[in-house]
């Protein structure tokens, strides 16, 4: 077991950058303010979200208690947390098990596949605590304090919270390693990752629709019935996901039944983990190693493909300007790396697509949609509808992780950017064009939806489109600013560059603030009595100035940072 624990220690160390942090705190004290600023932002951001979440939970607890079923809060939290972990965990697992760079070191070591797999699993599980703890601790605290629970409740609460990711993650991992065993080509793995990711997004949308669609207008009755009959509720969820019931009874019932359910939950968690290790030991390496063999170009006869390119001696290669070449490189790398494609590209167009699906589904049954359509066709309100649409477009344009992780994604290839004879300004300009192109795709999709479904007139569509593009300039710039200022260049798995990158969150937060500022400016213009045309023009000027200023800031930052960053 000793090698297993050493491997786990190393894996956790590199995953959370513990040694790097230690180094930072003990050796590079001058730069301490950078991580401090990041930690402060996280506390601030997470704190406000947690406060809102706790407020909502207190409401659920009070409602549950008033009808005599206070443990509703626990069931809902266990179901929600485990579902979230199942969904996102499957992606983490895919990245950590099959796209991680360190397998080149791990596979030749004298370790059993289950040891490697076990450490990977536990590392992912530790990552999941970042999701699980903020989701689980508030409800356990609210219920525990509200019901005046004793010492054993808190012990069980802590143990259950720690065990929570195990079942969904084991289920997700079993699914992933079984699937990967039968798809044995690297290229297919890329394709699979994209198809899987897209399916995941569709699943998320479907759940959204289901949640919105099921009660059909009598949500209050539905919830009341559900809450009023405790057994009804437990049966309902229990049939679909029994572990949440075991955990809830295990935690809320201090008697023998509680202990039995508690032990059942822990036992199933451990058994599933053990089964996963057993199966993984049999099939994991086969799936991992399949298709890694490389075919070198055979010497002697020249391949047809190469002959086509080099055959005509008089023909020249197409030469591009450096900025265009950098843009094309950025585009290709984003589109060809599944995890970047899903998060950086698909993420940007999926928002508008959710709107389409919701619209199409709800249109069939709900009278709300008809009312909304009548409301937005009202001539006196059309200005607000247009501006609201613009707000949505700017929101979509601001959620741009391609821009907010632009430098981080270079990782160990950053030396090429430092080496090439292209100025930092031009390099960042190419990255800006790339981020802007991604935002533009989102804008085009959203505007198209508005034109088709809201049937907004063409002139207004054009106004929204142009204003959207003008606004996107500053949004893309603020997204990029954080990443150029403090890129995360050291990572072993591309997932770390885009999904576990604080700059993506900071970029989104900054975009939201900027969109709020544009909204405030719009309200001010309307309150000052500006006509519709004047409002649009005023907004164009404000967003144009913001764009120019932020682009200038980005360029100044780029020239300073590229010089000081070392590769």
């Amino acid at each position: 077991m000793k090698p297993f624990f050493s491997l786990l220690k190393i894996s956790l160390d590199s995953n959370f950058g513990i040694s790097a942090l230690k180094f930072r705190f003990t050796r590079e004290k001058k730069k301490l303010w950078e991580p401090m600023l990041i930690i402060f932002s996280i506390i601030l951001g997470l704190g406000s979200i947690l406060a809102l979440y706790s407020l909502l939970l207190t409401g659920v607890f009070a409602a549950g208690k008033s009808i005599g079923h206070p443990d509703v809060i626990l069931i809902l939290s266990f179901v929600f947390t485990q579902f979230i972990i199942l969904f996102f965990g499957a992606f983490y697992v895919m990245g950590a098990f099959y796209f991680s760079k360190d397998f080149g070191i791990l596979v030749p070591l004298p370790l059993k596949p289950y040891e490697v797999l076990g450490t990977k699993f536990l590392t992912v599980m530790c990552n999941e605590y970042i999701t699980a703890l903020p989701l689980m601790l508030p409800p356990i605290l609210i219920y525990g304090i509200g019901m005046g629970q004793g010492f054993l409740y808190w012990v069980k609460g802590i143990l259950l919270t720690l065990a929570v990711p195990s079942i969904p993650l084991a289920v997700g991992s079993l699914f992933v390693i079984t699937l990967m065993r039968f798809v044995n080509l690297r290229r297919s793995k890329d394709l699979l990752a994209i198809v899987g990711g897209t399916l995941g997004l569709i699943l998320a949308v479907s759940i959204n629709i289901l949640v919105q669609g099921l009660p059909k207008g009598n949500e209050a009755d539905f919830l009341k019935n559900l809450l009023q009959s405790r057994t009804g509720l437990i049966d309902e969820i229990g049939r679909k996901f029994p572990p949440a019931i075991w955990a809830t009874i295990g935690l809320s019932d201090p008697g023998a039944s509680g202990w039995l359910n508690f032990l059942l939950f822990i036992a199933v968690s451990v058994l599933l983990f053990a089964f996963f290790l057993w199966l993984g030991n049999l099939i994991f390496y086969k799936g991992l190693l399949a298709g890694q063999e490389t075919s070198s170009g055979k010497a002697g006869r020249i391949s047809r493909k190469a002959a086509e390119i080099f055959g005509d001696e008089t023909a020249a290669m197409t030469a591009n300007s450096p900025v265009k070449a950098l843009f094309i490189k950025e585009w290709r790398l984003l589109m060809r790396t599944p995890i970047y494609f899903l998060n950086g590209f698909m993420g940007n167009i999926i928002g508008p697509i959710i709107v389409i699906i919701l619209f199409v589904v709800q249109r069939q049954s709900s009278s709300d949609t008809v009312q909304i359509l009548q409301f937005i066709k009202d001539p006196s309100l059309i200005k607000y509808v247009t501006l609201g649409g613009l707000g949505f477009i700017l929101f979509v344009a601001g959620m741009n992780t391609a821009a907010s992780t632009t430098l981080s994604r270079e990782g160990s290839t950053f030396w090429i950017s430092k080496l090439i004879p292209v100025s930092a300004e031009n390099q960042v300009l190419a990255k800006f064009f790339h981020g802007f192109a991604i935002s533009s795709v989102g804008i085009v999709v959203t505007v198209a939806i508005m034109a088709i479904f809201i049937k907004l007139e063409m002139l207004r569509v054009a106004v929204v489109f142009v204003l959207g593009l003008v606004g996107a300039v500053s949004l893309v710039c603020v997204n990029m600013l954080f990443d150029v200022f403090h890129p995360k260049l050291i990572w072993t798995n591309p997932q770390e560059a885009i999904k576990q990158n604080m700059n993506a969150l900071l970029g989104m937060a900054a975009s939201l603030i900027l969109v709020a500022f544009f909204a405030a400016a719009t309200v001010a213009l309307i309150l000052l009595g500006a006509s519709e045309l004047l409002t649009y023009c005023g907004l164009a000027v404000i967003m144009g100035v913001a764009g120019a200023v932020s682009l200038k800031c980005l360029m100044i930052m780029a020239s300073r940072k590229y010089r000081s960053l070392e590769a």
Partner: protein
Amino acid sequence: MFDINETWWGDQRLINIAGVSKSYNKGSVKAVDNLNLHIGPGEIFGFLGPNGAGKTTTIKMMVGLLNPDCGRISIKGFDIAENPLEAKRQLGYVPDNPDVYERLTGLEYLNFLGDVYNVPGKLRKDRMSELLDMFELKNAAPDLIKSYSHGMKQKIVLIGALLHDPSVWILDEPMVGLDPRSSHLLKEYMRSHCDKGNSVFFSTHILEVAEKLCDRIGIIHHGKLIAIGTLEQLRQGEAAESLENIFLELTEK
């Protein structure tokens, strides 16, 4: 210690390193300590030293990947700190580890470099064709770099570094990972490049290569240049002494 200015080219230096130092961990680890080095036209310079002596740090400062704490480095008269773009155009660099854009094909990678170094279309194709042929990579060029072996990646980086025909080559352990044939070709190519009045600066652990190929050799130890000169000068008259013995004696402590 040899006089580093004992050379015939005077001020025609292609690489000029003057008083360069670099330390890590707030000065506690001195990676390179007051390094002075000049490389002239037509010269193949071998840079030797034990692991961790400061070879890669020196090379990374020469090509602009690391910023020196003090001192100046110029390539063909262009200061790497003051005129980085012009200095970078004069050099071709191969790192010790071929980390390249794995999701580009070999051709796309080379074309990207051709674009950023402003290599005209026709010339680019001819050079690409010649270099790919030379290193037997033409058939693999349309494939993703991700599918290449370590040696193939090393070759594509090498081809990329030479595509714009720089006069100064700076190579960090270029033979590592190359098959004997490619390694031989590279050595011949280095010689013919320098015969045209250009220069090559490379680090290596293979003393035999340094012995046979280099016009001058520098040995760095604990960040300091402890010896520099032709093989004859390093031998200090003892003609039979091998470079290996000289190296071992000099880097004993």
